[in-house]
């Protein structure tokens, strides 16, 4: 299958502001290494999951893909063109093809803008259609996400959480994009409404031939929508595999821990839990060698020094751990 997106050894370092005094005594600049050498490909028509805890770099990766922040290093190729090297005009054209859905629909919608205007805005920005045509397109987009056109005249605060997220999705699809980056799209939606929103995303994907990057901390949601999943830890991908393979045969100690930690809504499916101690270290001074070694029960001497690379250990199953996959 064809690659729609290639992320090639991308890094994003955010400099830390220092006080005047600190600058006098130390010339060294310090950085938050939010994303530190991430590579993956997205196939046209698939759903790729980026899964990890807060601080793993999954959201920053998503922001770089839509061009909302530039990589410090590395390339992101969309249909062969490097996003970072585009002029602002070209970037605007690109945004028609790549859209983003954020976690909090209330924060994504202007409280003073009617739903109709909000969904129409991308069309206006890109100068598409006459006012009448745009109104028709808005009405159609709302229907596609399961809302009646009468919503056009309402304000965000008059809607429920699920309806607001539907509006945000309508706005994301109105330009008929090719790729949608969805960052925790159901995290703030009521539990009984989550499945609806996930199903909506899947049905829109089918209808428009969309590709998704689905960013989440929720492994259950990821297992439902993703074809492949990349697990991130402290700015790196530690494991990447097809969804079934990842859950049936996790090979990185961190992936194993994450999967075992998720509370499962069925008391008959009790499992052994493997919970590493401590918490995710600071991305300012990440541990040397393998970043997970400080919490890893399988760590050996070399893990402290050598940074593992993501290797294809089984067909289409990539793991950045030189120990566990070979230990049995």
């Amino acid at each position, binding site marked *: 299958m064809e690659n729609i997106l290639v992320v090639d050894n991308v890094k994003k370092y955010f400099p830390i502001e220092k006080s005047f005094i600190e600058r006098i005594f130390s010339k060294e600049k310090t950085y938050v290494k939010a994303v530190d050498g991430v590579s993956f490909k997205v196939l046209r028509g698939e759903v790729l999951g980026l899964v990890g*805890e*807060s601080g793993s770099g999954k959201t920053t990766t998503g922001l770089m893909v839509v061009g909302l922040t530039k990589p410090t290093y590395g390339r992101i190729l969309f249909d062969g063109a490097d996003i970072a090297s585009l002029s602002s005009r070209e970037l605007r054209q690109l945004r028609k093809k790549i859209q983003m859905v954020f976690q909090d629909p209330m924060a994504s919608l202007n409280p003073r803008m009617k739903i109709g205007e909000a969904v129409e805005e991308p069309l206006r920005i890109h100068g598409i259609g006459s006012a009448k045509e745009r109104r028709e397109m808005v009405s159609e987009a709302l229907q596609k996400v399961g809302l009646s056109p009468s919503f056009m005249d309402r304000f965000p605060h008059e809607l*429920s*959480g*699920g*309806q607001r997220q539907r509006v945000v999705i309508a706005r994301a699809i109105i330009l008929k994009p090719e790729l949608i980056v969805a960052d925790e799209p159901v995290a703030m939606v*009521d*539990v*009984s*409404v*989550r*499945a*609806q929103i*996930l*199903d909506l995303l899947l049905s829109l994907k089918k209808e428009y031939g969309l590709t998704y990057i689905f960013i989440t*901390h929720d*492994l*259950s*949601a*990821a*297992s*439902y929508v993703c074809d492949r999943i990349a697990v991130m830890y402290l700015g790196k991908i530690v494991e990447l595999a097809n*969804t*079934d393979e990842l*859950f049936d045969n996790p090979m990185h100690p961190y992936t194993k*821990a*994450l*999967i075992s*930690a*998720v*509370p*499962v*809504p*069925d*008391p*008959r*499916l*009790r*499992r052994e*839990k493997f*919970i*590493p*101690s401590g*918490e*995710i270290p600071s991305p300012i001074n990440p541990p040397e060698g393998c970043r997970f070694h400080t919490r890893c029960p399988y760590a050996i001497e070399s893990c402290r020094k050598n940074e593992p690379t993501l290797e294809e250990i089984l067909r289409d199953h990539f793991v950045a751990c030189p120990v566990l996959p070979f230990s049995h």
Partner: protein
Amino acid sequence: MSDNILDIQRLSVAYQSPYGLVRAVDDVSISILKGEVLGLVGESGSGKSTLGLAILRLVPPPGRIVKGSIFYNGVDLLRVDDETIQKIRGREISMVFQDPSSSLNPLMKIKDHFIELFRTHEPNISDKDVEERSIEILKRLGIPSERFNDYPHQLSGGMKQRVYIGLAIALNPKILIADEPTTALDVLIEAQILRLLNRLKRELNLTMILITHNMGVVAENADRIAVMYAGKLVEAASKEEIFAEPLHPYTQGLFESAPNFLRRVRNIASIPGEPPDLINPPSGCLFNPRCPKRFDKCLKEHPPLIDVGGRIVACYLYGG
């Protein structure tokens, strides 16, 4: 039953909003057994947190307890004077909230939180005693004693929640109400905190009310489960019974629509619609607009809680 530690009877809590009266908790009755973990499950707006706050009479205005009784050791907590309830808070019944950052005072060292707590309840306690007892609690919670002089912002989210749990159990309460104690935390930290709560429950013989929206959390940590919807208690049963055979259509829907990676299915049956607006609730059963099994009677009146073979459910499918 004599082994009930807490008896909530026909409790109603309402908020006066500019748009009308919101019945956040509406005529809820439930008993909590001594030593159990009751999982109180519901979505946002179901009234689960308000119920927790009502037990300690901490419902913030404009909310108020409209009617009902909450019996603890034969005393109705809703009818004792302020001084008595003040003594019960922390010492008999304690509470942990979702967001540890907003529960700790950013200008006070961890140490000072403990000093304040002990001083409030035991005015004559010596500095040395405070320090000794606090450090013992921190140890129990897996927090190094050096952290004692830190400010909350110097601690990670998981550490903060540990400190907060430490404050909640410091006075040896009998009941701990934990309101979404792990919702703000990452999944590995969540697992650590739940493990900690389970251990404390055993070591201190606590009775726990675990309030959460997460079915997985109750499946792994509760003994009995009560499900709330739109301010009403809709079902309560032992964990085993409710997961084996949920009775209320809402509970059934919640189970079916929760993605579960151990049983990967490509087509989950989602519940249609959204929870009702409590200012304009639907008539009849509050779940009826979303219910696949509704019939005429459901449109008329909200069903009463009835006993079905020792389980409680509010649904006309089972009588009432």
